[in-house]
C-alpha cells in the first residue's frame, strides 16, 4: 500500500501546480464564482463519504458515516446551485447590458 501512497503524493503535487496555474488567470470579476465553484469541486468529498459509510461495520461508524454523507451531499449540491445561480446572473447581465 505504501507504493499507492507515493503515487498519490506525486499526483497531489502535480494537482497543486495545476490548481495554481488554472486559477492565476481568473479576473477579479469572477472571484466569487471561482471560490464558489472550487467549493463545489471539493464536494468530491461525498464520494469518500459514500465509500467510508459503505465499508463501515459498527453502528458508531455507520452513524458518523451517515453524517459524513449528509454533509458531503449538502456541500456538493449547495455549492453547485450557488455557483450556477451566480454565473446565471453574469450571463443575463451580458445580454441585457447596453453599449
Amino acid at each position, binding site marked *: 500500500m505504501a507504493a*499507492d501512497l507515493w503515487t498519490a503524493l506525486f499526483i497531489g503535487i502535480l494537482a*497543486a501546480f495545476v*490548481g495554481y496555474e488554472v486559477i492565476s*488567470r481568473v479576473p477579479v470579476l469572477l472571484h466569487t464564482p471561482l471560490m464558489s465553484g472550487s467549493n463545489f469541486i471539493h464536494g468530491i468529498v461525498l464520494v469518500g463519504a459514500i465509500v467510508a*459509510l459503505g465499508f463501515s*461495520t459498527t453502528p458508531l461508524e455507520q452513524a458518523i*458515516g451517515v453524517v459524513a*454523507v449528509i454533509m458531503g451531499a449538502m456541500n456538493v449540491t449547495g455549492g453547485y446551485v450557488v455557483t450556477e445561480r451566480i454565473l446565471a446572473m*453574469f450571463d443575463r447581465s451580458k445580454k441585457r447590458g447596453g453599449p
Partner: protein
Amino acid sequence: MIAWQEPLVDAVYVLAVIVFILGLRAMSSPATARRGIVQAGVAMLIAVAVTFVIPGLRESNFALIAIGVIIGSLAGWYWARVVQMTAMPQMVAIFNGMGGGSAAAIAAVELLGNLSNTSVSGLSLAGAIIGATSIAGSMIAFLKLQGWLRSKPIVYPAQQPTNIAVLVVGVALGTYAVWMTQTIWLLPFFLLMLLFGFLLALPIGGADMPVVISLFNALTGIAVALDGFALVSGPLGDAGYAMVIAGTLVGAAGSLLTLLMAKAMNRSVGNVLFGAFGATEETGTTIQGSMKPIEADDVAAMLAYANTVVIAPGYGMAVAQAQQKVKELADLLEAKGVTVKFAIHPVAGRMPGHMNVLLAEAGISYDKLFDRDEINPEFPNVDVVLVIGANDVVNPAAHRAGSPLQGMPILDVENAHNVIVIKRGQGKGFAGIENDLFYKDNCHMLYGDAQAAVGKLVTALKKMD
C-alpha cells in the same frame, strides 16, 4: 478475477477529474464560466453514481447511503435556491463548512476502523484536524455574516496562548490515540479541534471575511485531499485518487485566492487571522476640516450635468440591498448622456468579488465594472464619484504614515473633482479609523440608508426631466 466494476469506476473518476480541471479553467472568462460549471456538475453526478458499484461496499449500508444523499442534497439544494443573493457570502461559508465537516467525519470513520494501520490513521488524523477546524471556523464565519454573532473581532485576554494550547493539546490527544490505538481519546481530540476552529475565527472581523472565507475553502480542499491520501493507503483505494486531485486543486486555488485577498489589503494572512484588526480604534490623530452634508437634489443636479460619474460601492450597498436602485440611477444618468462606470475594490464587501455579484444581479453589464488598478488613473478626469456604503477601501489614510491602514491599496477617489459619500451616519468604518476623505474640500456627505438615499437621487433626477 477482475470484476468489470473497478476499471469502470477508475475510468469515470479520471474523466471527472479532467472535467473538473477544465471547469475551473473555464472560470477565466465570463463567456465560458457557466458552461464549465454545468459540465463539472454532470461529471460530479456520474462520479457519485458510479461510486455505488465499487466492489466490497456492504449492501446493508446502501439504504443509509441513499438516505444520507437524499437528505443532504435536498437540504443543500433547497437552501441554496431560496436564499437571497445578498446572503451569498454566508452560503458559501456554510456549504464549505459542510465539506470540512464531511472530511472530518470520514477521517473519524477511518480512524475507528483502521486505527492500527499507521499510514491510514496518521493521514486521517491530519484530515480530521484541518476538516474540523474548517467546519467550526466556517460556522463562526456564517454566524458573523448572518449577523447572529457580532461581526467586530471578539477578543479576550491571552487569546493566542489559549488557542495554541487548545491546538497543541488536541493534536497531542489525537496522536496519543493513534499511537496507543485507543479510540476513546479520539472524542476529546475531535471536540478540541472543533473548539480550536471556533476560537480561531472569533477574533476575525467582518471586513476580513473575503480572506477568511477563501482560506477556509482552501483548508477544506486540503482536508479532502488528506482523506484521499488516507483512503488510497488503506484498503478502500480508488475514490482516494479523485479526492487527492480535486482536493489539492481546490487547496492550491483557494490558497492563491487567499493570498490575493490579503495582498489587496496589504496585510499578511497571519495578520488577518491573528491581528484582531479593528478591535481597537485609532487615537491621537486629528484631521483638519469638517464633514459637509449635502441634499439629494443638489447631488442629482451635480450628477446630471457631469460627463463622467464613477460609482464606488461597498458593503453598505449590500446591507441596504440598494443594487437595484443603483442600476436605476445608472440607467437614468446614461439616458442623459453621462458616462457611468463602477470602481470595484477587490475586498469591498464580505467575499472575493462580492460587489461584482451584486451588480450583476441588478443587471449591470460587467464591462462597466473596473478594477482598482484600471480605474485609479482615471479619477483626476472624473466629475463625480459616488461612494455608496464603502469606507475603508476609499480612505486616503492608507497613504499616511502611522495609520493602521497604511499601505493598503485603495480607490483614489479623492482625486476626482467631486466626491459624494452616501453613508448612514457619521460613524467610523469597520477598521475603526477616521476617514480622511470625508473631511476633504471636494467631498460631501449624503446621509441615509443606501437604498433610501439612492432612491431619493432617482426621484430627484426624474423630476428634472
